[in-house]
């Protein structure tokens, strides 16, 4: 007769092996490597928690020290490949196969290791896509996660940086896998229960907080006047006419400039209360002045941001906070919110081709996707109407029957025609294609597909791709805002002028914007210190961002 509980028995065996090296659920830090050797089996699917912000760094270091003769050929299924140890385990043979989402700082090394055959790549995913696969065909047998604190029973407090943890634990624990948590301290009572004890099998007291990267802190001092101009174009040319209330902002300086222009330029345009009220957003420090001046009603967060904890605790109407007062972030839910409940995504990119495909790949780097492709895509399953969504749908298909016409999410790419190091943002061919050739990938790593992009904003103006009726118009609309790049100089001037008459392209002067008004004095805060002052001293910027 078939054994219907092989997974449960497998977990039981691991639990027993682990308990020999633990005291109850608690594993001593000095026994961690031996403990991991006892509970891990060759070929296991393992989720080592880490994303673009938080890291289970102590568990990562311990995993890199296990004996490859005992533990080898692991299949890593994890959001972020960020710490050196995440790749060291592939050098030593502890791990062999990888499915991931984001690789930020390790993007060059991961590409080298993939090219050299050290890593067998499953696929590069978006966060939400990888989370989905945890429940279908990539369920972890062991999850190594990070929390702020645990009580003796194993209840976990994951705090403001809860992020991926509930999703990872849900898939692993109910999929009969083993959940091992590193915690900063063991306490009598956790401030709130983010993960219930019966889903947690072992706890390691790391005696220090897990590592968190302040990824979403943008220093207003570094915002350029060109970025301010693009922000003015976006606010007056897109936010105002579409009346966008529910949105997500990307990570770059252009969107930081928008956040800092709301209380000045936006206020003057009479937009307060009419745009930017509800957000799926990490707690950007640059949004503090807009929050303080009453622009924002509610923000749900993917993760937290270093230094913002006390500020968010003091603004419970705005942020999702627990009974203990601290933020509860949740990446899976916030990604879903950004996909289905936001009418706009706006973000920067490094390359856009003539079809509007965009990519952050330049040179030999596999940076992964993170969440941007989900934010920057039209949700085909969306069914609820909203004014911006309906209007965008109507622009794309003016003759369709209104009651049967899909709306469209506004997906906006914003940037300067020449980016860092004077590299052109507009290209004939994405570097992502060269990388796909080199690594023999079936799919080029495209961040946002051209058919999802609705608008492109540069200092040259706003291109509305929804109004383009064929491939040629689309190409000329893109060339028309590409300025003095090779792509821009190869535009068909007559066609671009016709597109301008139809408002497919709108120049600054068409929107009543004088580029000379794009001045840093328009920024409501011009330094990190201004942001701290705007927060009433509640925002505590990390040391590296302080110039005082």
């Amino acid at each position, binding site marked *: 007769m078939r054994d219907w509980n092989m997974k449960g028995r497998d977990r039981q065996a691991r639990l027993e092996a682990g308990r020999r090296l633990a005291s109850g659920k608690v594993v001593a830090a000095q026994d961690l490597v031996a403990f991991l050797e006892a509970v891990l089996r060759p070929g296991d699917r393992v989720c080592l928690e880490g994303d673009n912000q938080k890291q289970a760094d102590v568990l990562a270091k311990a995993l890199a020290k296990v004996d490859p003769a005992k533990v080898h050929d692991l299949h890593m299924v994890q959001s972020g490949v960020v710490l050196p140890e995440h790749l060291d385990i592939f050098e030593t043979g502890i791990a062999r196969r990888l499915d991931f989402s984001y690789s930020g700082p390790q993007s060059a090394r991961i590409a080298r290791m993939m090219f050299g055959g050290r890593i067998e790549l499953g696929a590069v995913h978006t966060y939400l896509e990888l989370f989905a696969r945890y429940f279908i065909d990539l369920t972890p047998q062991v999850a190594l996660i990070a929390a702020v604190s645990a009580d003796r029973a194993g209840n976990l407090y994951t705090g403001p940086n809860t992020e991926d943890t509930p999703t990872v634990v849900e898939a692993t624990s109910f999929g009969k896998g083993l959940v091992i948590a590193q915690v900063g301290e063991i306490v009598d009572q956790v401030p709130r229960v983010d993960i219930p004890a019966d889903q947690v099998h072992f706890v390691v007291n790391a005696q220090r907080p897990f590592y968190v990267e302040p990824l979403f802190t943008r220093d207003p001092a570094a915002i350029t006047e060109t970025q301010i101009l693009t922000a003015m174009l976006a606010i007056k040319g897109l936010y105002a006419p579409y009346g966008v209330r529910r949105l997500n902002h990307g990570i770059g300086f252009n969107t930081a400039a928008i956040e800092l222009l709301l209380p*000045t330029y936006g206020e003057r345009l009479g937009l307060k209360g009419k745009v930017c009220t509800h957000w799926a957003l990490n707690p950007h420090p640059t949004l503090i002045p807009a929050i303080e001046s009453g622009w924002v009603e509610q923000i749900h967060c993917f993760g937290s941001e270093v230094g913002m904890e006390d500020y968010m605790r003091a603004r419970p109407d705005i942020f999702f906070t627990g009974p203990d007062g601290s933020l509860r972030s949740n990446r899976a839910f916030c990604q879903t919110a950004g996909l289905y409940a936001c009418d706009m995504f706006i973000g920067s990119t490094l390359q856009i081709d003539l079809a509007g495909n965009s990519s952050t790949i330049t040179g030999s780097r596999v940076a992964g996707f993170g969440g941007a492709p989900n934010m920057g895509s039209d949700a085909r399953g969306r069914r609820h109407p909203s004014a911006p969504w309906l209007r965008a749908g109507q622009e794309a298909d003016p003759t369709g029957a209104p009651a049967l016409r899909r709306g469209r999410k506004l997906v906006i790419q914003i940037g300067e025609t020449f980016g860092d190091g004077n590299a052109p943002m507009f290209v004939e061919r994405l570097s992502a294609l060269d990388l796909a050739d080199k690594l023999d990938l079936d799919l080029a790593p495209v961040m946002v597909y051209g058919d999802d992009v609705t608008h492109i904003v540069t200092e040259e103006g706003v291109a509305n791709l929804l109004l383009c009726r064929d491939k040629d118009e689309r190409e000329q609309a893109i060339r028309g805002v590409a300025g003095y790049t090779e792509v821009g100089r190869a535009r068909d001037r007559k066609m671009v002028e016709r597109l301008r008459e139809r408002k497919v392209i709108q120049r600054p002067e068409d929107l009543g914007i004088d580029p000379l008004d794009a001045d840093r004095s*328009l920024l409501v805060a011009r*330094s990190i210190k201004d942001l701290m002052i705007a927060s009433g001293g509640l925002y505590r910027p990390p040391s*590296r961002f*302080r*110039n*005082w």
Partner: protein
Amino acid sequence: MTSPTPLPRSWYEESARGRLAHLLDAGSFTEFLGPERRELSPHLALFNLPRQFDDGIIVGAGALAGKPVLVAAQEGRFMGGAIGEVHGAKLTGLLHAARQLKRDVVILFDTGGVRLQEANAGELAISEIIRATLDARAEGVRMVGLLGGRAGCYGGGSLIAGCCSALVISEQGRLSVSGPEVIETNKGVEEFDSRDRALVWRTMGGKHRYLIGGVDLFVGDDVAAFRAGAVAALERPALLDPAALASEQGRLERRLARFGDATDGTEVWARLGLPHPAALPDLDTSAFLTLANTQRESADAAR
């Protein structure tokens, strides 16, 4: 479009020309060797680097609260305000004029030091400027340095500042011979983490320099405040004689004995007797001055 901003005109944010325009009495400024003369660096083209028509420094004459002064303003946004051959010659010439005219000088420092691409010419320029400074000061000319720019005041620039009769600094200002990256490169990240900006400011920033008597006046990051500071600094004694030098030497020896083994700015501030030293960086200008002025060290007319 009218400006909606209630913020003061930030010294740190302004260009060199913007600072000068609002520092001096309105309409009083006359530029010497302006950009229309195109006195370009003879060296930068060798490195395929862009040049600027004023070589990153503006020199001229103007008035401050009715008093005629000579002024020089470094542009920190051009090569970090670095001092090259032409840049240095313009400042040297201005100081020679100050000596002959017996007219006080205000220098708006914003520099990382010598322009490395012009190595020897830049180093020579620094020594010529220092010699001209001391010659002018020997004639009783006041030299006031204003420190609050983006590039800080480092290297040779800091040596020139050290020869001034009075220095005015804002919180954003930094004054140090070696910059953070230089210290880290030579002594290692354990000695000094240049990316820890709060540490940089605790070590070289305006508040710390004011507390240990490295500068004379502390003002907010506001062009109007710098103007008031410059006017006040021009009232200070100009005297540079052996007695002043000896007394400053004595002060520096005492300072070394008192703080020489401190490992962080906060430790120095605690020894100065300041309450809650760790909270000091967060204080605003007036709260800081109230506290600082009871405990700080002050320099003599030399430093």
